[in-house]
């Protein structure tokens, strides 16, 4: 037996922080950071007698996320208490949702190694985040309740993943969708997107699921991928040795690169879920659901199809642009008055992307309006400037924020397309470069390049390259006769 005889089966529980201004049950800020215990009040610290009051925005955002993942929405939903003791949980229960989550049965399509694959979403529910324990030497542990009551959605998938690559692609797609829906900042380093991985293995061809382990709180896509790879191998080794996989919760130890057992099934909590009596059921009308649906922007998959069909750009390029909603929105504004939409896409993917890091791409941090790019592309399209001059103009726009037309005017960068003016230059260049001319005449097509270069040098790059090419060939052709 070898690893390739086994199949890995993975399901995810992804927690994402919603970007509401205030917490789920009180008016404290959700802002990240802050001195310990400064973003909290009697309600989020669970003082005796306090009661939760549901933030309506949380419901709206969760439904929006659900709709973005093609989920059904429960018009009658409720919240439940999940009971367990831990110092970061001041009420000793977490308000979550048990049997009637806000969203259920959705799906996300991913492409892995050229194959399309559907990942089913089992459910999406809302819940409150817990606080943070800070372990400082000497002083024992202290608790920071700033995070308590920050609203989360938990997205639970079906066990539809078969590799760590599936998971990585899915998480990236999920992140894009949440950013598109504008319901979460998805900042991994602030813990606003993290996932639990349920993993089991089985012999290929088997239909029964194997015993699974759960790996908690992976707050980096890379950790998740590494943990999956390690854990799959570990389980296969266990089986190959004739042992059984134990159902347990494990933790990824990044420094050692291994997963470590935290607690077994026997030690697992009985959460004693029951309906939260302090909160009323969440009732959402069909009209309200449609209203939320209509507030969703066009999602990335749909945009990619449209860019390919209508704008005639490659699917690869379309995906690069649609990866960020901000960039896609920018692109769509920039192409409105341009015939050659592909040219706009090229500018974005080459010149703009090379100047931005990942986060800036995400936010489309471009120092000028889409109309500037439109203007630049049109100046090239109508022959006013050449493509290479265009790059210089682009750089200048980026630096100074000036309009392309203004730069072209100021610096006299207009392309020389005047036949007479170019004809006389052609003559000069041919006269001054007899070797290149001869090379060309003897069949070295590439030699024309040197002559074009001389033309450009003489015009400081402003000569219309297409015309220069034609005129040179024509003139040399005449020489041959």
């Amino acid at each position, binding site marked *: 037996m070898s690893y390739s005889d086994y199949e890995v089966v993975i399901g995810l529980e992804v927690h994402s922080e919603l970007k509401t201004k205030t917490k789920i049950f009180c008016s404290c800020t959700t802002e990240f950071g802050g001195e310990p215990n400064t973003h909290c009040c009697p309600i989020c610290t669970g*003082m005796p007698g306090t009661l939760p009051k549901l933030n309506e925005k949380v419901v709206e955002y969760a439904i929006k996320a659900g709709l973005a993942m093609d989920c059904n929405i429960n018009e009658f939903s409720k919240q439940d208490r999940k009971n367990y003791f831990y110092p970061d949980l001041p009420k000793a229960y977490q308000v979550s949702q048990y049997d009637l989550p806000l969203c259920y049965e959705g799906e996300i399509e991913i492409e892995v190694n050229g194959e399309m694959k559907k990942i089913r979403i089992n459910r999406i529910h809302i819940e409150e985040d817990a606080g943070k324990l800070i372990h400082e030497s000497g002083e024992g542990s202290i608790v920071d309740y700033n995070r308590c009551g920050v609203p989360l959605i938990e997205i639970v998938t079906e066990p539809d993943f078969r590799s760590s690559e599936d998971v990585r692609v899915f998480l990236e797609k999920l992140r894009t969708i949440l950013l598109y829906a504008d319901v979460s900042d998805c900042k991994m380093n602030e813990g606003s997107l993290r996932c639990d991985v349920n993993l089991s293995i089985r012999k290929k061809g088997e239909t029964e699921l194997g015993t699974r382990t759960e790996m908690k709180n992976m707050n980096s896509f890379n950790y998740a991928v590494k943990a999956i790879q390690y854990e799959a191998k570990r389980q296969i080794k266990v089986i190959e040795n004739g042992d059984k996989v134990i159902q347990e919760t494990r933790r990824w130890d990044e420094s050692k690169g291994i997963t470590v057992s935290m607690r077994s099934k026997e030690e697992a909590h009985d959460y004693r879920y029951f309906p939260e009596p302090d909160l009323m059921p969440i009732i959402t009308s069909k009209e309200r659901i449609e209203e939320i649906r209509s507030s969703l922007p066009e999602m990335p998959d749909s945009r990619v199809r449209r860019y390919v069909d209508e704008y005639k750009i490659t699917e690869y390029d379309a995906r690069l642009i649609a990866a960020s909603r901000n960039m896609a929105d920018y692109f769509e504004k920039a192409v409105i008055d341009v015939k050659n939409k592909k040219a706009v896409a090229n500018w974005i993917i080459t010149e703009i992307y090379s100047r931005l890091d990942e986060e800036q791409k995400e936010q489309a941090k471009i120092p000028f309006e889409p109309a500037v790019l439109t203007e630049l592309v049109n100046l090239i399209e109508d022959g006013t400037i050449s493509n290479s001059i265009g790059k210089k103009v682009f750089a200048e726009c980026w630096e100074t924020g000036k309009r392309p037309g203004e730069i072209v005017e100021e610096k006299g960068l207009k392309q020389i397309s005047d036949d007479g003016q170019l004809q006389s230059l052609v003559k000069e260049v041919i006269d001054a470069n007899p070797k290149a001319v001869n090379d060309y005449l003897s069949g070295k097509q590439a030699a024309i390049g040197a002559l074009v270069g001389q033309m450009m040098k003489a015009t400081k790059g402003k000569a219309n390259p297409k015309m220069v090419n034609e005129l040179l060939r024509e003139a040399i052709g005449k020489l041959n006769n």
Partner: protein
Amino acid sequence: MDLIKMTAHELKDKLESKEISSVDITKSYIDRIDKVESSVNAYITLTTTQALARAEEIDDKRAKGETLGSLAGITIGIKDNMCTKGIKTTCASKMLEDFVPPYNATVIDKLNNEGAVLLGKLNMDEFAMGSSNENSYFHKTMNPWDLTRVPGGSSGGSAAAVAANEAVFTLGSDTGGSIRQPAHYCGVVGMKPTYGTVSRYGLVAFASSLDQIGPLTKDVEDMALVLNAITGYDKLDSSSYNKKYEDFSENLKKDIKGKKVALPKEYFSDGIQPEIKEKVIDVAKKLEELGAIVEEVSMNMTDLALPAYYLISSAEASSNLARYDGVKYGYRAKNYDNLVDLYKQTRDEGFGKEVKRRIMLGTYALSSGYYDAYYKKAQQVRTLIKNEFDKVFEKYDIILTPTGPSTAFKIGEKINNPIEMYMNDICTVPINIAGVPALSMNCGFDSNNMPIGVQFISKAFNESTILQMAYAYEQNRDLPNITPQI
């Protein structure tokens, strides 16, 4: 003029006509507390110094002609499970012995706005669990009618304080009868309004889906006055009902002719003390004399209410009381080995016997594998009981029953028999389960001269009908002229 014997509405009249001052009232009450508190033990914390300052402030305002609230200068006591900013709120538990809330319960803000003067925080059964006040961590409160007997519970301090004239009125909380049963034992008026009528914000939770704050007063007119002050929608409480609340005083004195009264025979079973049955039947007769129509009905679900109540309330309590873990506030055990041990020691030392019993019962009822058989089943029973009440109220305005199966018992008599103690709630818990309003008031005395309560129940948000009926009865009842021992 004996101010301590007067009702709130009588005092209001005298304050408004400037016959007396707020300071006069407060001083009379402080004197009274000095005199009888050592035998009654109704209070846990007294705030008499602040009370005098507050009374002076109100007198000043009155002198200046400023607009005053509806309870300006009226001296009150609050059950010690409602949060008072800067004043200890203990729930009569070692767990919260030194807990000082940083905020006021909504009812406290409302009473403050109306100008009420707080005399102190009242004794109760620990975390409102009990029917005798014997479960208080601090001390037992005595029944002012007979100091060897219990005042009832869990709002025993609230009922005893009104009966002993240690407050003009008090607030209690009622989860399964905790206002009405002590009102019955102490011969005062006590009401549990419709669930959702009075904000629970700041009421330390026992069983969230059943808890409701209500007043204990000297007469029915005061009940209407206090209800006007404390009812209303509160955006901080999601279970608070958003509607315009009526003026309860307005229709108080209306005729009750033609009102239909149901006597459910299940509330007059063999388990009820015969003298209680007699007196409640007398009330029905009196109402008939006043023009009401009285008919016997049957409510088959009645027997199921008590077990359903103990499952639901204990389940919710097990979760609500989990936060007392020694980490954030309240009691923390001195010696512990690790985190789990900290929890165990703190909760073992901080909670009393009855509280632990209910936490265990509730934890069990919610546990995986038992949920369906206990908690879920109890919730189904709850629906059946609600439906049964709805059905009766299709035909009747009021259901009339005894408030409890017996009158006040001797201190120590039932403390070692939880089941017998729980039976005290048999007439009151169905009302909390159904979420409807009910009032208990005195309708006579047993052979030991202990008060007997009659319970008026109506449909949700129909407090005004209860008050009308109770007022009509109060105006026409013939009670022997006996007063508390104290």
